[in-house]
């Protein structure tokens, strides 16, 4: 309701303003076109976020200075700190970068965004920008109509730049015409009161437009048309810096706790920077004058001096805050702790990751790994093992006899608590994310969905096995006990091997060793290798036991197959080409059967 009242009020004020003044109409249209240009520009850059930007972000954020540099360079290049913030939040939410690196990027982005003021003040105020805007718009729209993702992206970037230029042109024209009818400098306020009033106006203007760039353009054009004083322009620029955090806060609302922490860090940085700028305004002003004189900016060129001021006070903010990045990150983690959910919920699947295909895939992969971790515990308990026992590299076959005390497990409750909700969220996220993906990326998600299904199937198979397994591992019949313990050991070994493959990272030879597990599975199938028949023939187990063992061997076989399939998808190398090659070299069921039938290998069966 409150939002609607605000919107209505803005619309009424604007309509009254349009009726009152043609120049106000032109300035407002300029702002609207400029903001539309920003949206187009972001849309264009998003087309390229599927590769280069994300790769760079991953490789260049392992140190504070590196993340800082990445923030400066990427924002300078894209001219949108909002886009960099949103991408950083989505990366942080997906767990691809740490909070310290994220904070470094955001600090850098604040400095990077000041280059916009330089460009507008140095270039935009001197050149007739509309002349450049027209061809850009034409080429841009042609590009937008193209099917190719990159041409489409270039089209949006060109159109975005065209609209930005056109917007600046209209704002400039509006303020120039304003000069002849009304002098806004009569509203100037001097001293600290003016500083606070105009800082507040800067905040409000940026909150409404959700772009500090747009506010800065208005400030620079107004300053260039001498409609505001230099001192008030400085205060407005400080306000714009604080107001821009609102965009990040809105972006973080749909993000997880990590994204919210980053938005909080952004707010802290901008508030501290603003405070420094207000407190030391005289000293910063002197520094700006000194730098301007050194680089040859005329004393009365206030627009460029504003750009210098914008860069100087953001640099001061970085100098003041960088030594405290770690402390800030730790405090935020302490103040905003992660909440332990009653029913397992996704951690990495956030709305901010949906529009960035590679991030969306990485998020689904991480979440499916969490699903596997939860499933691991249920399966381990279902096999009557503690997780730590399976993962202990020193334990081999002997582990069974020492851990035969029954572990209570409620499959339905466990499934409901730690699998069902999470799996559902993964499926829902995948179906939403696929809409904006290339066929290759959609295939990747399809595979991850299959891996999730394999995990769920493995739990169901464990549940089926569990009843007989609990009965026979404490049975007086040593033969059936041995067979069930064999099943448990084989599956525990398989889970341990899978864990080894997972932890070896990007080594293709490790993924290929999953074929060994397939061979083990084939050779240890007691139904197929004749063990079961032998036990029945020798009257060592009853008919009921034999039926149970036959069914449970089939469940164990299916479970192993599902887990190996899952491992091949989830633990494969990150390079797409290598992933495909690994898939081709992994042995097929027929090839495994051929090896199992080989005399040299067959002779090893009875002893394993």
């Amino acid at each position: 309701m409150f939002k609607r009242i605000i919107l209505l009020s803005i619309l009424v004020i604007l309509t009254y303003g349009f009726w009152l003044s043609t120049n106000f109409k032109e300035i407002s249209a300029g702002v609207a076109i400029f903001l539309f240009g920003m949206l187009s520009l972001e849309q264009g850059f998003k087309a390229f976020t599927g590769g280069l930007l994300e790769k760079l972000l991953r490789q260049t954020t392992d140190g504070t200075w590196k993340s800082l540099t990445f923030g400066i360079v990427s924002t300078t290049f894209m001219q949108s700190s909002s886009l960099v913030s949103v991408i950083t939040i989505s990366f942080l939410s997906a767990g691809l970068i740490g909070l310290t690196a994220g904070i470094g990027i955001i600090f850098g982005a604040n400095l990077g965004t000041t280059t916009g003021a330089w460009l507008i003040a140095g270039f935009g105020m001197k050149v007739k920008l509309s002349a450049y805007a027209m061809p850009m718009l034409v080429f841009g729209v042609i590009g937008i109509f193209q099917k190719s993702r990159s041409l489409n992206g270039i089209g949006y970037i060109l159109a975005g730049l065209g609209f930005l230029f056109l917007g600046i042109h209209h704002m400039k024209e509006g303020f120039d015409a304003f000069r002849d009818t009304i002098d806004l400098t009569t509203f100037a306020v001097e001293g600290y009161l003016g500083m606070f009033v105009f800082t507040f106006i800067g905040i409000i203007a940026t909150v409404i437009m959700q772009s500090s760039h747009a506010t800065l353009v208005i400030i620079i054009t107004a300053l260039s048309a001498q409609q505001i004083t230099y001192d008030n322009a400085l205060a407005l620029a400080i306000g714009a810096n604080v107001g821009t955090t609102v965009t990040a806060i809105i972006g973080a609302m749909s993000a997880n706790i990590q994204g919210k922490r980053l938005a909080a860090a952004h707010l802290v940085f901008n508030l501290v920077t603003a405070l420094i700028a207000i407190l030391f305004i005289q000293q910063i002003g002197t520094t700006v004058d000194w730098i301007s004189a050194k680089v040859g900016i005329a004393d009365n060129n206030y627009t460029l001096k504003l750009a210098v001021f914008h860069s100087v006070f953001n640099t001061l903010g970085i100098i003041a805050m960088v030594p405290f990045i770690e402390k800030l990150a730790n405090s935020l983690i302490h103040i905003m702790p992660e909440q332990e959910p009653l029913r397992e919920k996704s951690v990495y699947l956030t709305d901010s990751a949906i529009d960035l295909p590679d991030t969306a895939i990485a998020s689904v992969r991480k979440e499916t790994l969490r699903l596997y971790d939860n499933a691991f515990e249920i399966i381990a308990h279902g096999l009557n093992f503690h997780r730590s026992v399976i993962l202990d590299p020193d334990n081999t076959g002997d582990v069974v006899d020492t851990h035969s005390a029954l572990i209570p497990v409620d499959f339905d409750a466990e499934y409901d608590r730690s699998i069902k909700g999470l799996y559902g969220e993964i499926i829902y996220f995948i179906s939403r994310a696929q809409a904006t993906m290339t066929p290759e990326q959609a295939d990747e998600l399809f595979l991850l969905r299959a891996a999730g299904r394999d995990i769920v199937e493995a739990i169901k198979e464990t549940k089926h096995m569990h009843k007989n397994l609990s009965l026979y591992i404490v049975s007086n019949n040593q033969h059936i006990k041995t067979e069930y313990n064999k099943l448990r050991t084989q599956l525990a070994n398989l889970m341990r091997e899978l864990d080894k493959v997972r932890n070896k990272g990007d080594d293709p030879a490790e993924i290929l060793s999953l074929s060994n597990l397939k061979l083990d599975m084939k050779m240890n199938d007691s139904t197929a290798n004749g063990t079961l028949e032998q036990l029945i023939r020798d009257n060592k187990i009853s008919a009921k036991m034999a039926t149970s063992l036959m069914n449970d061997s089939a469940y164990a076989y299916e479970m192993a197959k599902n887990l190996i399939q899952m491992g091949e998808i989830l633990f494969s190398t990150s390079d797409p080409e290598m992933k495909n090659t690994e898939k081709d070299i992994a042995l097929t069921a027929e090839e495994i059967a051929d090896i199992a039938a080989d005399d040299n290998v067959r002779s090893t069966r009875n002893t394993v």
Partner: protein
Amino acid sequence: MKLPKLLKLSQALLSDNKNNMDDRKKCLKEIQRKLKKKSKRLKEKLDCETNEDLKNTIKKDLAVVKAQRKKVVNELLKLKESKD
């Protein structure tokens, strides 16, 4: 260089197919190298092993690596043929 030859060369250089084939060859070579190393390591382990059960496990692993290495060689040959 004559124009048709130059065109053919530039076409080959810019071709997506060629780039894909080069990438695949690179991956196959990398896997081949890793598998060779693994095979050597397993053979050394087999020579030192005295436990019969563990020996058999290593033999099975070796059989799998051998089959995979064979697959890599076949894939490389296929790639070479399609290049020619």
